[in-house]
C-alpha cells in the first residue's frame, strides 16, 4: 500500500489530491507510470520540468524503492513567500 499526494497544478490536472494505491509498486518510477497510465494529461504533467518527488517526506532524485505504507508526493516547482 502507498499513499500518493499531488500538489499545486498536478492535483488540478488529475482531479484528485490524495489516493491509496494497493498493492503498491516496488519503486517510485513504477508508481509514477501506474498513475500516469490511466491519465495521459497527468503523465505529461508529472514529467514536466521541475516536478520533484518526495518519498516519506524526503526529496528523491531519480528512482527509489518504496517501502510498505510509503507516502509519495509529487510536487511542481515550489513558490513560497
Amino acid at each position, binding site marked *: 500500500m502507498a499513499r500518493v*499526494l499531488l*500538489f*499545486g*497544478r498536478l492535483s*488540478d490536472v488529475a482531479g484528485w489530491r490524495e489516493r491509496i494505491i494497493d498493492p503498491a509498486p516496488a519503486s517510485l518510477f513504477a508508481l509514477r507510470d501506474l498513475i500516469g497510465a490511466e491519465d495521459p494529461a497527468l503523465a505529461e504533467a508529472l514529467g514536466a520540468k*521541475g516536478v520533484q518527488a*518526495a518519498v516519506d*517526506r524526503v526529496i528523491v532524485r531519480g528512482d527509489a524503492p518504496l517501502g510498505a505504507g510509503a507516502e509519495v*508526493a509529487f*510536487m*511542481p*516547482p*515550489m*513558490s*513560497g*513567500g
Partner: protein
Amino acid sequence: MIRLQQDPFEPGALLTGFSAGRSETGAVVSFTGLARASGGGVERLVLEAYPGFTEAQIGRIAEAARARFSLQDLMIVHRVGEIAPGEAIVFVATAAVHRREAFEAADHLMDYLKSQAPFWKKERGPDGERWIEPTARDISDAARWEQERGEAP
C-alpha cells in the same frame, strides 16, 4: 520561531514581540510579503502547503541561515489558505549584533523560502485561476548564495 497559519496576522505585532527586551541586539531586520491586487486582477491568493513536510523544510532553511550568519534569533511566519490583497503572506525577522548579518540573513531566508519551501500558490481573479511558479529571478536570487561560496552555480 517558525509557524504556518491559516488566519491573517499583523506584521507590526510580530515585530513588536520579536524586538522586545533585546538589550544586546543591535539590528533587527524584517521582511513582509504582501498579496497584491494587481489592479483588480487578483481577488484571492490561495496557498497550499504539504503539512508536516513544509514546516520541516522551513526548519532546514532556518538552520542553514543560522549556520551561515551570526544571528541571535530569527522568526518565520507563513500563511496558508486564502489570502486577500493587502494581507501579509510571509513575515521574516532576524536579530543580530550588527546590521550586515541581519540584512543578509533576512535576504537569504526569503530567497530560499521563495524557491525551496514547499508552497504552491494560485491567483484567483475575475478571469479564473492561475498557478504561480517561481520566476527566473527567484531561481537566480537563490543561486547567488551558492556562487558566493564558490560552489557550482
